[in-house]
């Protein structure tokens, strides 16, 4: 069956410990200039409605649980996009005493969008790239469930 997720990927955006630079770029993608809604993308702000998890900023001791919680509340199939260099590796905050690193230290990340700050075009690119991964993911989970039977 054809997957409709590409036609309507809904996003939840979480700010780890970002400097707000990448967050502003994420929100810029919603403005009339970039208008991601023309691809059916909606910023839901609700993990239970979301298909794509955008994380900006590195993970610290305090928001570790929050990120895990959001990830677990999202219904499958889902993808995680790390936006900005801090979300890819920890960036300039990497060696701080409270920083664990990128979100890939606690949840599986599918797409990395580097940049400081990541440009809106790059973020949209990352999301689109993630969507093409999603098909593979669905196929894999189907193969797995078939193997089980």
């Amino acid at each position: 069956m054809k997957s409709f997720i590409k036609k309507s990927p809904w996003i939840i955006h979480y700010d780890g410990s970002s400097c707000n630079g990448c967050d502003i770029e994420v929100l810029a993608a919603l403005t009339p200039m970039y208008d991601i809604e023309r691809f059916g993308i909606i910023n839901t702000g609700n993990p239970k409605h979301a298909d794509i998890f955008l994380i900006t900023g590195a993970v610290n001791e305090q928001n570790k649980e929050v990120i895990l919680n959001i990830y677990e509340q999202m219904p499958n199939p889902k993808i995680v996009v790390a936006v900005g260099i801090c979300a890819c590796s920890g960036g300039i905050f990497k060696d701080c005493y409270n920083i664990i690193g990128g979100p890939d230290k606690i949840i599986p990340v599918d797409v990395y969008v580097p940049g400081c700050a990541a440009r809106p075009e790059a973020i949209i690119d990352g999301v689109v790239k993630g969507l093409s991964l999603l098909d593979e993911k669905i196929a894999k989970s189907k193969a797995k469930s078939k193997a089980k039977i």
Partner: protein
Amino acid sequence: MLSLISVACYLVFAPFLGGLLSGIDRKITARMQGRVGPSVFQSFYDVAKLLQKESLVVRRSQTIYILFFFIFIIFTGALFFAGGDLLLVIFSLTLAGIFFVLGGFKASSPYSYVGAMRELIQMMAYEPMVLIAAVGVYLVTGTFYVKQIMAFNLPLIIFLPAIFLGLVYVFTIKLRKSPFDLSTSHHGHQELVKGITTEFSGPALALIEIAHWYENIFLLGLIFLFFASNPILGIILALAVYFFEIVIDNSFARMKWQFTLASSWLVAIILGCGNLFLLFLI
């Protein structure tokens, strides 16, 4: 036989028309905001996607309530298009709303809880006006049966202009448009996440969407009732009212529940009761 056909038409075509309407709504909204906007079929893509997603629930019974909400919305519309009793239509619409609220309460997250409470307040706000409209229609036509109201030879708007305006006012609540989209809306709620629908995911959310499509078509039917003697004009004006609601949606910020309740009751008293009073005088 005719009523059977119109019910069948409603059951089959309402979701398509409703989905298309909400797609066009989003497109127009986007154009008003200077954006390109999604495809007009976007709502169908959304629902198709939601049906393919995993169903995550807090409590299993919450989906049952949504199922009943869905069934009763369809029942409401079917009863209306079958030419049934207008009062029964309104009560069944209320019952559907109650099931929706129960679903929101059942999910027991703070956001859906507050959303469900606001939904109750919204129902309290629009209910008097809708009932007064039914009474007004009865006073003019002498019947509650939609079939006979449709057959009335003059457009009801001539006798009930103020009631019609009042109904359009509470329609903003019913269509979940700003400034009265308190309980949930299409746009992400910043203070309430997604309100009453927060805890519903996947197929349950799809069911809510489809129920709203059915509901919107029924509501347009209610507007149509005021111009029923001239069907073509009726359809055009019903769509015009919907367009007017989109304009309102895009030009107002969300109001508080106090304003929603007070203003819609004020509208019900002044426009609704005033019109009834005039009918008595004439």
